[in-house]
């Protein structure tokens, strides 16, 4: 059963996930689109390593994109319908295996914002194409 993929929206209605994806080089963007396709088709459990659980943030998952930069996309299941949806929350770049400070906290705060106001704080995933 296909899953619905959503992007977080900020308080102005902007889509930071789209903006982050637009900063990726073509190979990284391609890998990202492929992984989102896999997620949409089968969820995260069929493909090992597609989206890994985070010990420090139990509601969050991380998609790894390796390439010229270490792009990382943070997402959650649901958070409205846990059986049919994923929401992409925040994109980041790891440097020397370190994420920018506060990345997980910010991603979790975005999840909470969506829970409070799902109709305004997320929208259907906007695929970036080149």
């Amino acid at each position, binding site marked *: 059963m296909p899953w619905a993929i959503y992007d977080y929206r900020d308080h102005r209605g902007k889509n930071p996930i789209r903006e982050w994806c637009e900063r990726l080089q*073509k*190979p990284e963007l391609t890998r990202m*689109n492929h*992984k989102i396709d896999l997620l*949409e088709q089968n969820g995260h459990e*069929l*493909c*090992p390593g597609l989206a890994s659980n985070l010990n420090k943030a139990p509601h969050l998952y991380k998609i790894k994109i390796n390439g010229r930069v270490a792009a990382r996309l943070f997402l959650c299941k649901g958070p409205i319908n846990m059986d049919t949806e994923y929401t992409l929350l925040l994109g980041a770049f790891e440097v020397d295996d370190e994420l920018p400070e506060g990345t997980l906290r910010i991603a979790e705060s975005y999840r909470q914002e969506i829970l409070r106001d799902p109709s305004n704080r997320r929208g259907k995933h906007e695929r970036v194409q080149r």
Partner: protein
Amino acid sequence: MSGFNGNLRHEFQDKEYRHVYADEALNAHIATQIKVLREQQELTQRELAKLAGMAQPRIAVLEDVNYSSWSINTLRRLARAFDLRLSVKFETFSSLISELDNFSRKALERDWFERDVWFHKKAVQPAASAILAAAQAKEQQHDPALQIGARALAMSGAPIYKMSCGAAAIAAGE
């Protein structure tokens, strides 16, 4: 699923994009199939590692869609451990679309030799065997001509044995 077909039709016009996407799809396919086959055979990573002559952490690395440094020799060892054959082919990009459409646990499972019905049933009549093989190859495309042929064969009374792959289900009109 067909939602991404339209995207890929457009995106694959770009050569770099389609090759990177296909590489990623290959990595995901192999890693996922190793895990699916291991679970189908009810093996732990440690047990599979022993059968393949590898260390358990190596299996964990291979069962990761982010891994990309595959070697034919490693895959051969895994094929032998699973008692399956390894198949490496060059394919069209359009065939990737249907592979992605059908990507699922069921589609990745394979019957190892001991469960490979073809080797453990009485010989099927040559004509039936040929049609069944063709139907099996075309199964996911639901080729109507093959279905008609297989049904006609079934009605003729020729012995057709049920196979787990579903081809015989087409033959029997089920």
